[in-house]
């Protein structure tokens, strides 16, 4: 398998250490001098940029959490003047406001490099056509793989999501070699192909890069069978860059982290102490190679473990395991981040009781979200039409905040768990 950037991906640990140290020093200085939030945080603990001499000093630095992005909404954590920004992306925040991220041209190049390494690790070359069925837009999935494909010199096909029959037609007609989408959509495409009576072996697609939502080894096997391809995992989050922060190689036993740009640590989410390699804890990233949003020790809330053994593929970069859960209550539904508190926010904005129950299920490999809410007495109507109109009204309000459709089920007042204490708000029936 080709390696996109062997100088980095197969570098010695000493080389990486020196590179990471130099980049961390530069990045900390940038954060301190250009982001008032970081200056205040550093000053609070009496830390000066000069105190950081190497990557080993990273544990001296304070953590950043998602609410810091919200509190500084929209651009408060940006370290560059507007003139240097070339792109904005956004993802769901914990309340109504999205998490906004900005990129300089250098940052876009860094991100594209990560995605290009991922495509290459999946066997991609400049001769390939990369069919991108991630959503294009504020979500980083579509544009992330798109720029990665172009960086690799491959042909990007911006298919985006939806209209599965047309997707399959394009896969056949345009002779795509690699497909990129969420794993659940890959399953759906695979099953549609089977139902259409098409032999997947007749499709030229030989590899798929799937991410943006949790998936299991069992799903990997199913996708590989349904589409007659090899399925590769990719990891990323918009706060750090987007897809391509880490990626599977042909060994498929952990994702290589682009640690020259995104320095990973695993910490105990309770004590916040770093954990040794091999132990599961919360994944933390420091954006040592980025300009616009130099996040310091950003807590991803994903639970995983790091390993630094030399990989059979030849890469020397640290590998992270598939995330096995979250240290917060975020749900990933059809690739979209959903926080239960967002639902509460919407209900309160509609003058409804903040009592709700989210039920997530996976049917025909698509995530389904149902929100049970308590109607107010004046919402009750003696006609089915009237009740359905109320459900639709709430569904529309949820859709505009969550960016995905959730089915609303009206319940009688007083029948759902109260908001006091630790009410169970989520039932996730997906087998992940």
């Amino acid at each position, binding site marked *: 398998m080709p390696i996109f950037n062997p100088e980095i991906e197969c570098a010695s640990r000493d080389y990486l250490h020196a590179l990471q140290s130099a980049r961390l020093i530069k990045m900390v200085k940038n954060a301190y001098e250009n982001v008032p939030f970081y200056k205040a945080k550093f000053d609070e603990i009496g830390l000066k940029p000069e105190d950081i001499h190497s990557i080993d000093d990273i544990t001296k630095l304070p953590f950043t959490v998602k609410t810091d992005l919200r509190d500084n909404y929209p651009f408060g954590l940006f370290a560059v003047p507007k003139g240097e920004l070339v792109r904005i992306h956004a993802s769901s925040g914990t309340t109504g406001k999205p998490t906004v991220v900005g990129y300089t041209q250098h940052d876009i190049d860094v991100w594209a490099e990560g995605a290009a390494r991922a495509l290459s690790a999946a066997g991609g070359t400049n001769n390939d056509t990369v069919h991108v069925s991630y959503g294009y837009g504020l979500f980083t999935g579509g544009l992330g793989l798109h720029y990665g494909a172009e960086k690799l010199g491959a042909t990007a096909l911006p298919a985006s999501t939806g209209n599965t029959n047309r997707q399959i037609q394009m896969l056949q007609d345009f002779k795509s070699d690699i497909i990129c989408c969420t794993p659940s959509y890959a399953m759906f495409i695979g099953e549609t192909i089977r139902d259409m009576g098409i032999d997947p072996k007749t499709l030229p697609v030989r590899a798929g890069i799937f991410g943006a939502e949790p998936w299991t080894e069992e799903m990997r096997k199913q996708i590989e069978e349904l589409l007659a391809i090899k399925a590769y995992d990719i990891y990323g989050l918009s706060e750090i860059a987007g897809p391509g922060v880490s990626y599977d190689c042909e060994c498929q036993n952990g994702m290589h982290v682009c640690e020259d740009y995104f320095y990973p640590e695993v910490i105990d989410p309770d004590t916040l102490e770093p954990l040794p390699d091999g132990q599961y804890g919360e994944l933390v990233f420091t954006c040592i190679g980025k300009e616009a949003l130099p996040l310091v020790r950003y807590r991803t809330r994903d639970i995983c473990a790091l390993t630094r053994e030399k990989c059979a593929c030849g890469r020397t970069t640290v590998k992270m395991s598939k995330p096995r859960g979250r240290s917060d209550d975020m749900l990933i539904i059809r690739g979209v981040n959903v926080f239960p508190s967002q639902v509460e926010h919407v209900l309160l904005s509609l003058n409804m009781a903040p009592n709700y129950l989210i039920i997530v299920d996976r049917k025909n490999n698509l995530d389904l979200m149902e929100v049970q809410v308590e*109607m107010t*007495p004046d919402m*009750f*109507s*003696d*006609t*089915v*039409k009237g*009740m*359905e109109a109320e459900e639709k009204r709430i569904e529309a309000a949820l859709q505009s905040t969550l960016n995905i459709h959730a089915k609303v*089920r*009206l*319940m*009688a*007042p*007083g*029948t759902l768990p109260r908001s006091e204490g630790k009410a169970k708000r989520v039932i996730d029936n997906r087998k992940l």
Partner: protein
Amino acid sequence: MIIKQLSIFVENKRGRLAEITKAIAAAGVDIRALSIADTTDFGILRLIVNKPDEAATALKEKGITVSVTNVIAVGFDDKPGAFSVPMQILADNGIDVEYMYAFITRRSEKAYVILRVADNDAAAKVLTDNGVEILSEAEFHEMMC
């Protein structure tokens, strides 16, 4: 002209109908007519009872979601084609029917239907003007005894 109907929210849960009807029984209320609208998620039970206000209070005390809806009761001869007459009158006057249900009485020469339309007063007027019998609440309950 207007008759009070109880509209009750019924969750799709085993035993819910038993619970509701027991609460009505405990209040000493007699059910005269009923229908239920069912969807995949919930049902709406519609009842005409002899003491609607008492029944509504008793149900609310049990935490059951109930509202009182105004409907009209239409009577016509129990013979083929009779029912189409009031339906045609409503259609001709642009009055849409939300739902309806038939009920039985102890007198057999006439048939009766409960009608829920968008505008009860307008419906009652055009039907009466065209010679269709509309029952008052008193007539309705008297007839049921």
